[in-house]
């Protein structure tokens, strides 16, 4: 694999129909690192995250204008198939959403099987094992791979979703508040996992938990909104350490120190 290149976002405006939700984002996300996005509710951080794998446009009427370059390729260029983008940029959602009709094993293989791709039993076994190990779930489920994925606990389900995401071998993994529905122990498990995953993947995580952002991320972006009905902006983007100790923008400082939001 070629040396990974950063994700470059230029002049990105994100719309829901006529409504401009996020305005003019310019940012460079370093590869093989963890980038956290923080900000108050409704500021557009999740919306921005979803534009990085073109999931945003799944919502009726939603679209984005601008450039997002992943590995030197603009994913918003003419003729780019969002399906191909999503194969390269995986996503983990706020609520764990394993497929209820599938076993644990089939959930991990979902990316392969749902695309009707053939895979030999041995390759499948290997993929299941490596993905579940990659998601730190293997030891807990190896004896019950054929049991339904919905039978796992919330934290396990979320790790199953991460295993499912990395099983398609993406370059980037987007996480939309992956721990917000989990208890502290499961959260810790996932945070540890994020640390391990960044050796191989570029990770962008949206979180409401500022401690979590400071724990897991290398760089942090702060989104804010001027008021209801106004578009969100990326206020500040810097190394996590600097953001949490000595932010340049007054709004960032206020948010991080808990003066609002």
């Amino acid at each position, binding site marked *: 694999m070629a040396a990974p290149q950063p994700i470059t976002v230029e002049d990105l405006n994100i719309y829901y129909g006529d409504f401009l939700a996020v305005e003019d984002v310019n940012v460079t996300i370093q590869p093989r690192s963890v980038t956290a996005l923080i900000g108050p509710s409704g500021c557009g951080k999740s919306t921005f995250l979803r534009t990085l*794998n073109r*999931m945003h446009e*799944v919502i*009726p*009427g939603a679209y984005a204008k601008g450039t997002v370059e992943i590995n030197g390729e603009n994913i918003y260029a003419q003729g780019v198939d969002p*399906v*191909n983008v*999503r*194969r*390269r940029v*995986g*996503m983990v*959602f706020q*609520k764990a*959403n*394993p*497929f*209820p*009709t599938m076993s644990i094993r089939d959930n991990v293989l*979902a*990316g392969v*099987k*749902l*695309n*009707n791709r053939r895979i030999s039993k041995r390759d499948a076994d290997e993929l299941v094992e490596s993905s579940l190990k990659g998601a730190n779930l293997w030891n807990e489920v190896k004896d019950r791979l054929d*049991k*339904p994925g*919905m*039978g796992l606990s919330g934290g396990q389900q979320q790790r199953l*979703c991460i295993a*499912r*995401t990395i099983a*398609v071998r993406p370059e980037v993994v987007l996480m939309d508040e992956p721990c917000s529905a989990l208890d502290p122990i499961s959260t810790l498990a996932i945070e540890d996992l994020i640390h391990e995953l960044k050796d191989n993947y570029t990770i962008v995580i949206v979180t409401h938990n500022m401690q979590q952002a400071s724990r897991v991320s290398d760089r942090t972006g702060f989104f804010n909104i001027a008021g209801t009905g106004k578009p969100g902006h990326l206020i500040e983007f810097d190394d996590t350490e600097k953001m949490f100790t000595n932010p340049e923008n007054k709004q960032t400082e206020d948010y991080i120190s808990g003066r609002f939001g």
Partner: protein
Amino acid sequence: MSTATTTASTLSGARAAERRLPLWHLLLTGAASLVLAALVLATFGNLSIVGVILLGYVLHLVVTYVYSRVREGRRWAADRVVMLLVIGAFAIALFPLLSLLWKVIVEGGSRVVKAAPHPFAFWTSDMSGVIGGADAGGVLHAAIGTLLITFWASVISIPIGLFTAIFLVEYSSTGWKRTLAKGVTFLVDIMTGIPSIVAGLFGLALFLAFMPDQSVRMGIMGSVALSLLMIPTVVRSSEEMLRLVPLDLREAAYALGVPKWLTVVRVVLRTAIAGLTTGITLAIARVIGETAPLLLTVGMVTGVNWSMFDGRMATLPTFINQQYRAGKANCMSDTVTNVVNGDVYSCSITTNIDRAWAAALTLIVIVMVLNIIARLISHYFSPKLSR
């Protein structure tokens, strides 16, 4: 009064005497009410089981309320009475169903089982050559007709209905598609209210428009007429079921790089399959007993007709209608002889009516079997939640 009960009563904010009575008190008051009802009715010389049960039930409501009010307090008394009312409503809802089943089994069962010339011959013979009051014949031809016509009605309706539902739920979010979807929904709602006889007339008129011979009747005409009744039911139920599939699952599939059509096929339909089969079975059950459209479009014959495109066909509902309307048979002697082949059957005055009931039982059995199949499908394909 002990200290403990005093404390408890202060906590519950009610009298100390308020505590639940065991269930057998309720059974006892129930029995007492029935006896009382029987006595009252006997005094007026109107003793009957139905009367005792009805009056007993009403008495029991009063007795329970008063008894429970005294022993348990006002809140529990209300609870008891409402529970009795719920049980009563349940019994009233269940009574027609059970009595219908009972009646059909009693009236039709013996004719099915003890058919001449051998048991269950009713299901293996048709009506060709059966004359007068002969205690013979069966519904093979009608059962085959019903199954064929319903099958082809389903073959027409299920794809149309399912694809319409998929369009409405998955592909009609914006622009002109949204407008189209609103129009489709409106038309489907209107179609739901079409009387079945109108559907039958439409099916007939549609085919006769292309036929030189205006007396032509074919099975497929019936299927088209029935599909008209079936499509809106399938669309409606499938639409509801597809909407129940969480958006999360679609997004999860998209995020794995699964194209939309595969997401619909492999995730949405797969997750909703239990509900879809239930909805489709209900749609089938709705049309399988239709009489009017089939009387118009496929008519009646006495023998088996396997062809959907060649001539009239017998169906169970029309068979029931025909037999019941034929009423009592004329029996000149104890036996009836078929002049063509010389077979001799015993003559039964009630043979037509017996056949009607037995055919009704057959129809119920068919619907039940279809339901069981649908249940099995839902059972094996529904999302597994247990560990």
